[in-house]
């Protein structure tokens, strides 16, 4: 009897330690990498959140098109259109220009598109995570000092690359298709991410900045003309 209760207590303690470890780990990793959101002003946070949610709606709409009209495009070529799903991790950091913006933008947008209902369900979050990490790694590589040009397109490319790597595993492409066509899909995915993710984010960001609504945010520094 006592042995049993002792064993139960030990198990419980072990469970608690593991649980605590798992729950504290993301915070520790974030702090180590400097993703503490300390420099963010409240306005930047809320604007980033709203933009991410709006991008999530775009993701969802693109997902509906993908599940219907785009199904006419066979496997490796359809990957040219995946790039739109990188926008969360590109548009938000392009406008806000802070550490963590890419990760937050992509994850929130992925969550919104999942919550509105899409074909991939919870796997959307996995895609969002790898795409966000891909973009964040590149911006982080530039010490979060550069968010335009090569940094933006590099982030788009790595996000696209990570994205198809995950898909190859999750959807078992290696089982159904030859490595040649998977390789072609990867190239199309990366190029598509640079064009549909990177360039579209830049165009949309600049179009928004021109309206003056982003004044006070990093994208508009030195750009807003006062009359």
């Amino acid at each position, binding site marked *: 009897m006592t042995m049993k209760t002792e064993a139960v207590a030990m198990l419980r303690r072990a*469970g608690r330690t593991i*649980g605590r470890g798992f*729950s*504290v780990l*993301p*915070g520790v990793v*974030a702090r180590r990498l400097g993703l*503490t*959101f300390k420099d*963010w*002003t*409240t*306005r930047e*946070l*809320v*604007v*980033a*959140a*709203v*933009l*991410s*949610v*709006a991008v999530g*709606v*775009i993701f969802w709409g693109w997902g*509906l098109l993908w*599940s*219907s009209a785009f*199904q*006419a495009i*066979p*496997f490796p070529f359809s990957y040219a259109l995946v790039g739109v799903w990188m926008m969360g991790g590109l548009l938000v950091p392009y406008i806000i220009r802070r550490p*963590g913006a890419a990760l*937050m933008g992509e994850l*929130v947008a992925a969550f*919104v598109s*999942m*919550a509105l*209902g*899409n*074909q*991939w*369900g*919870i*796997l*959307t979050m996995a895609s969002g995570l790898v795409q966000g990490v891909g973009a964040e790694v590149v911006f982080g590589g530039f010490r979060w000092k550069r968010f335009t040009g090569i940094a933006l397109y590099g982030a788009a490319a790595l996000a696209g690359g990570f994205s198809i790597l995950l898909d190859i595993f*999750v*959807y*078992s492409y290696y*089982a*159904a*298709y*030859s490595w040649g*066509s998977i390789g072609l899909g990867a190239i199309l995915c990366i190029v598509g991410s640079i064009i549909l993710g990177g360039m579209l984010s830049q165009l*949309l960001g600049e*179009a*928004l900045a021109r*309206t003056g*609504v*982003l004044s006070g945010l990093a994208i508009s520094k030195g750009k807003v003309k006062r009359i």
Partner: protein
Amino acid sequence: MKPAGYLDQRNPCIKLLAVVLAALSLTFIFDPVTPAVLFVITLAAGRFLGGLSLRSQIKPLWIFVIAGVAILLANIFFNKENATSPAILSLGAVKVTGPALWAAGTLWLRLMSFALFSLVFVKTTEPQHLILSLIHQLHLNYRVAYGTLVGYRMLPTLQSDYQTIRAAHRVRGVREAQGLLHIWSRFRRYAVPLLTGAVRRAGRVALAMDARAFGALPGRTYRERIVVRRSDWVFLAAVVAALAVVVAGLWMIGITRFTIE
């Protein structure tokens, strides 16, 4: 407001973990029967533990039948086993092989299961509870969490803004150009005013939050604290056990496969 069912009362992070585990285990399984069984079990769980009618669970998934047809066609034409496998059915020059049907069924049912798992999760989880749970259990920075919640709350506003912009375009007689070349101009005509409005509103909300000293202190108090109860661990254990029983049981009678072949 429907009465809170068993699934509604579970800790959101634990529920999310259960969904992730179920989805992850499906990615290692290469037969159509196992995901189909898990799909039916999830339907039943949604119905009896989550209080979701079968109709409300099935209806949102209808559109993905199209994707199923496309996956089937892609496999009939492009599956790499087609050249070496005997045809089950021949339609003129097109031969339908066993491996093609098998792969298509696996992938499609896997996708349908993923979609249903998350549908049940989203429909039995309040966004506020999820955010609070992320703060309390996963120690997510509360400023980020609340900021995100504010953004999420603006989703219905975005929708009504869209209708306003559409009406404004109509009343001014803006013609909607059709065709592929005009996608960008159409997108811009909606996206720019929509996002401009959202960013303005976000700025005002942020000002109100600042006025209430949001984020001025490292910690804060909560009206409601989301905790992990013993019943949540029991739920997680039950999900893992159910997964193990289904996979092991089907494997023993020779249905579940862990390799492609």
